């Protein structure tokens, strides 16, 4: 599959050079890339889902390494993996159910391996059902009844399903095609979701913005822009304060677009956020990624805004397309339970950040005489810090508005369970450790 590899390499280059900006664009391109990978992947006769998973995972790893800060890539890879598993399982379950209905009598012949002999008749169905359960969001009952069983099950699920399918070779061709077809359909759906998540979020704007509201935002986010414009289209009149978001000045861009759409916009410096927040009714911001604990990775400066909002009891609303930005982040390597990994980010400001060029703050040459002042004793006198992201702790966030509705920060872990398979968390971590 040379052409796929070329595509992958091209995308990798873009990621490495940070040519792709914004999590939505990244997410969409990742999904499209994975879709072509899946469609081009030659599937072996046996264990097709496993082969697909391996292929996707291998490419996903490269993508993640290329830009570890662009969390949307990893999220999409996990989503696709999850889709593959889900589709595989649904097919297996259907097949097994059919099998059990039609050939209850000859399941002794089917059981090739010795370990299968002493299993009960409906073991395959039970396994499939259990596997399905693990892919589903974990319920409180499951947690209480002992998660470890279910942790173990998914690993054998694919092989169990395949051993079942091994006997039915006549179904093979149709099933292969059906699996791939289903998966690609699902990935298409995912891409669709990513594309339309702005609209879904923007639809909720009128429920949150009232007449004469004063809204503050920082930096630029397409979601925020759509959100505000949707409210504007519904004849709400309100004014927007835009903090410029130095040193990238994305706020200027947002202000420009808001003005072009006829919104009353006031551009302020970032330092004036505290001064202005007392006259603001609501802070609406976009995000880069959302942590499982409800914390937000957002453009730099957001923590300041969040603290100011908290001080003045101004609601701090984060807009996040759930498909692209929900991040599963495994903080400590000690947390082994994949079901509900605590997922508390450890020092995310530092670990999940990216330092940009100092030239955005100081012109090259302006301090060149100072930067190597201390070169004699090894450490330079002057450092310039220019981080890209800020971490906003969950307690500072009042509300998440996602395409599935509004959520509390404390509910975020649940959405993650909806979208990602617990299996992939572990896998991802193992690979990360390997790297």
């Amino acid at each position, binding site marked *: 599959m040379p052409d796929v590899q070329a595509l992958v390499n091209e995308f990798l280059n873009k990621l490495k050079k940070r040519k792709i900006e914004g999590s939505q664009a990244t997410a969409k391109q990742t999904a499209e890339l994975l879709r072509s990978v899946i469609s081009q992947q030659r599937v072996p006769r046996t264990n097709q889902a496993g082969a697909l998973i391996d292929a996707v995972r291998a490419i996903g790893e490269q993508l993640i390494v290329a830009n570890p800060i662009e969390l949307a890539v990893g999220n999409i890879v996990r989503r696709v993996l999850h889709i593959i598993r889900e589709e595989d399982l649904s097919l297996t379950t259907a097949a097994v159910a059919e099998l059990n209905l039609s050939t209850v009598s000859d399941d002794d012949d089917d059981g090739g391996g010795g370990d299968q002999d002493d299993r009960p008749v409906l073991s395959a169905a039970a396994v499939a059902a259990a596997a399905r359960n693990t892919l589903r969001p974990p319920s409180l009952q499951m947690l209480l009844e002992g998660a470890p069983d279910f942790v173990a099950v998914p690993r054998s699920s694919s092989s169990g399903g395949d051993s079942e399918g091994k006997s039915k070779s006549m179904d093979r061709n149709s099933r292969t095609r059906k699996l791939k077809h289903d998966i690609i359909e699902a990935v298409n759906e995912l891409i669709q979701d990513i594309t339309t998540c702005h609209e879904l979020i923007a639809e909720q704007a009128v429920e949150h913005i009232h007449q004469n509201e004063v809204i503050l935002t920082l930096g630029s986010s397409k979601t925020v822009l759509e959100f505000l414009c949707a409210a504007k289209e519904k004849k709400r009149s309100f004014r927007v304060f835009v903090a410029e978001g130095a040193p990238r000045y994305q706020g200027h861009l947002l202000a420009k677009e808001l003005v072009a759409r006829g919104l009353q916009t006031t551009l302020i410096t970032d330092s004036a956020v505290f001064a202005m927040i007392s006259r603001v009714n609501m802070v609406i911001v976009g995000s880069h990624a959302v942590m499982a604990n409800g914390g937000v990775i957002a453009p730099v400066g957001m923590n300041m805004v969040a*603290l100011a909002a908290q001080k003045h009891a101004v609601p701090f609303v984060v807009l996040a397309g759930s498909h692209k930005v929900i991040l599963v982040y495994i903080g400590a390597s000690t947390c082994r339970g994949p079901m509900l990994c605590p997922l508390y980010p450890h020092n995310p400001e530092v670990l999940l950040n990216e330092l940009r060029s100092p030239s955005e703050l100081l012109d090259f040459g302006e*301090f060149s005489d100072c930067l190597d002042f201390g070169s004699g004793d090894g450490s330079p*006198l002057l450092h310039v810090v220019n981080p890209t992201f800020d971490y906003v702790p969950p307690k500072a966030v009042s509300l998440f508005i996602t395409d599935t509705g509004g959520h509390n920060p404390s509910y975020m872990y649940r959405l993650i369970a909806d979208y990602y398979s617990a299996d992939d968390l572990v896998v991802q971590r193992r690979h990360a450790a390997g790297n």
Partner: protein
Amino acid sequence: MDARRGSLPVPRVRQVGFFTPNAQPAPTRSQSGPPDSSSPPLSDSPASNSLSPVMIPPPRHHSDNLAAAPRPTSPLPVPEPSPFRRRGADNNNALLVGSYNPAETLLAMSPSSSHVGDGESEETMSGGWFRRSNSGKLASSLPSGTFDFSPVQSTAEALKPNKVQNPVGISVLNNTILAEVSARPAPKEQQPEAPSSSKQPKPKLTKAERRALQESQRAAKAAAKAVAAPEEVATIKSVKQHQTQKKDAPQVAVSVAASERKGGDKSQEKERRKDAPAPRMQFDDKSRVEKAKRRSVVDQTEAKKRVELFRHLPQYEHGTQLADLESKFLQLDPMHPAIYKVGLQYLAGDISGGNARCIAMLQAFQQVVKDYSTPPEKTLPRDLTAKISSYVSFFTQCRPLSMSMGNAIRFLKNRIAKLSPSLSESESKSSICTDIDRFINEKIVLADRVIVQHASSKVKDGDVLLVYGSSCVVEMVLLHSHELGKQFRVIVVDSRPKLEGKALLRRLVAKGVHCTYTHINAVSYVMHEVTKVFLGASSVLSNGTVYSRVGTACVAMVAHAFRVPVIICCEAYKFHERVQLDSICSNELGDPDAIGKVPGRMDVNYLNDVSNSGNLQLLNLMYDATPADYVSMIVTDYGMIPPTSVPVIVREYRRDHLLI
């Protein structure tokens, strides 16, 4: 202070919020010279410098201050109805009882003045008016004369039967009163223009009064043709008498008031109330703005797109007036060139920073005083105060005054008003010049040194200090600590659009201080490693609010959230008794265009084409107010205090400020 420092290396009183017990400043630090030299002259009272900051000595001059100067210090920024009313009544009583000749009474004044108007020009009349107001005491009591008219009006009806022989006089009087009443809003409106100096309205009041007088004269001229002309000598005498009555009246009133209110306690309270700052000019009040504009030298064009929330603040097009003013340089004869120069520097932004602006202003005033000669028929205190007031309003037009400048102006005017009349002109001038020098030295230069001593005792080895913007005191603290050989790192946080931190960074790096430079958005990224935050202030308000460069509040807030102590370095002369809760009500707006343009970044020019769209407003705030909760400690020349102690300092030391 030194003796105590020797035994207690860390000032015991001021461990606010944090305390590092193992950190003891080296003896060399605690006993270094400046406090020695600086503390004694900080105030006359010997107690104040040897005491630890909690124990605030009672102001020594308080009582004799009151006794010696019952009224003249208060030029009625706030009209108090009851004393005036009583004084009006007093006045009338005095008139009725003491004057036999109705021509000598207040009521007869207007017709007589009309005759003056007949004989001479009106200007000479007003000149005569001023010539007679010779002493400073009279000068300051003069404006109160304005208020005398309103009670008179009410009593005028009662007096009618007595004045039958001169009905014209009454009608003219009524005209006068009406003119007064109509003229009175004008001075009131002009008051807020000089926010922090309560003395300023005085000359304007008299100007308005003069205008009112002229109007009344005109009216009288028209109405009182028929009245026979008495001798001019008599009229002048009557005016003189009228004034002496006026001069007496306030004192009588005060004594009555004092006796009624049982002693000096109440009157002290009253005086304090008078000291309360006058409301500032609100720029959303159209009529006042119009009036102010007519009188202004600087021709400011108002910004076309004004931010709705800040209509009460002046919003001007920046960069338009400078050339215009420069061209006027040679034409403006009443303006002293030193003043003009400093004003232009304010306007162009060449001088910024509270101390620098204040010193520049004071030195310009010093120049003015040196070149000053009392015009004939005027007195030095009165005329000089008027001149300074006009200069101050010029400065205000160039750039709104900072509170520290307000305090300095108040000090200066107070010194001028307190000049002993027995001094000759040159003596008075040199006395004022020395006073200005002393203010600069003791309140700014030496105060800074004391602050540096205090604050650098808080810098320990291994510290990571965060500073914001560029404050000269903080810079001195850092450099001094560096000179002492302490090992620490500085994080310079900067913000647009002024990027003042760059200059500070350059100076620090040149001195070999290890620095990290970042912008304000990244402050929570760097705050993890910070151990202390040092911030400067433009002013500290008496509710503990720190009024400082915009962004200070953000930095302090983030530091507070990360449990990092915030230390404010601020000279005590910048303390102000005003209170403020937010940064909206009183602020200064910078050039809005500076927001849209990002110099040096070609890729960021999104707003080049839309900046004239109606919906887009650019807001360039200059200051913000940091709530007292975020401040761990304020280092002043009186020691290290918590923000809750600011009103104490303001109350107890303010008289010292004024008297030195």
